[in-house]
């Protein structure tokens, strides 16, 4: 009943249902943030722990999509659009193609992890703990409330202050494309 109401009403309906169910004052962007954060962390964990690497790649797409949602919540819609275009549209497809080119059907890897997996897990947990502790203990100074990044401000900064990095990135992408084609080219005579 409550879930049906929530689906029928969309975001305001969900807020209404949450308020009726005894969570007064729940804001829509809080709900979206928690939802996207959970999706992102769970799919990120799946990326690094699943056995089948194709499924790892698909979980990575879910992770990037949830991250685009978080960009929208934090107030950077242009970055969210770029995230969808670049990561979901381009890099994920590239990685899926590379997986399909290098997957070994005859002998699937018995061991997914290296022998150093347990120390790596301990190191990652310690890293997460230290980052959390540092972030919560630091006074970030002039932190205001969330502001929304207008796209025309970003465009103005990109083509005035940052025009040199912009051009350099263009040249870098050209070099990367040429280098990628050269490295992955199938050479008949001699090693590539």
């Amino acid at each position, binding site marked *: 009943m409550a879930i049906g109401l929530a689906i029928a009403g969309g975001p305001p309906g969900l807020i209404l249902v949450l308020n009726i169910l005894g969570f007064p004052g729940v*804001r829509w962007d809080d709900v979206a943030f928690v939802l996207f954060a959970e999706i992102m962390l769970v799919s990120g964990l799946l990326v*690094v722990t699943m056995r089948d690497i194709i499924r790892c790649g698909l979980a990575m797409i879910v992770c990037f999509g949830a991250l685009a949602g978080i960009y929208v919540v934090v107030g950077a819609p242009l*970055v969210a659009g770029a995230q969808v275009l670049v990561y979901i549209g381009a*890099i994920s497809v590239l990685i899926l193609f590379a997986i399909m080119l290098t997957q070994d059907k005859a002998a699937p890897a018995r061991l997914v992890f*290296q022998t150093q997996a347990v120390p790596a897990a301990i190191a990652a947990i310690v890293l997460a703990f230290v980052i959390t502790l540092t972030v919560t203990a630091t006074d970030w100074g002039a932190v205001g409330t969330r502001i929304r990044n207008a796209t025309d401000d970003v465009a103005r900064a990109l083509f005035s202050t940052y025009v040199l990095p912009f051009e350099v990135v263009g040249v870098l992408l050209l070099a990367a494309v040429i280098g990628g084609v050269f490295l992955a080219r199938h050479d008949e005579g001699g090693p590539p």
Partner: protein
Amino acid sequence: MSNSLDSYLVLSGLLFAIGSFGFLARRNAISMLMSIELMLNAVNLAIVAFGSFIEPLKANASVIAIIVMAVAAGEATVGLAIVIAIYRNRRTPLVDEYDAMRQ
């Protein structure tokens, strides 16, 4: 919760830790590249969060995040090309079998 800088930074730190675990622990070279992508995304989230909460960084953070994305795309292109080139020679995507230089 969605209106405090700390929650975004903690989220970014958790994603970075997940990526670093994947980079250190996985055997497959493409899995390691995917973990690097996770770490780059975590750093991007931190940059965008700072830009959204600190007024003087407002537009700069979005520009830097977009430039980081472009550089990450170039990195993924070259990295995957190298993995494919090595796979063509060695017939395995597992990094612990790439031992030609220590024999």
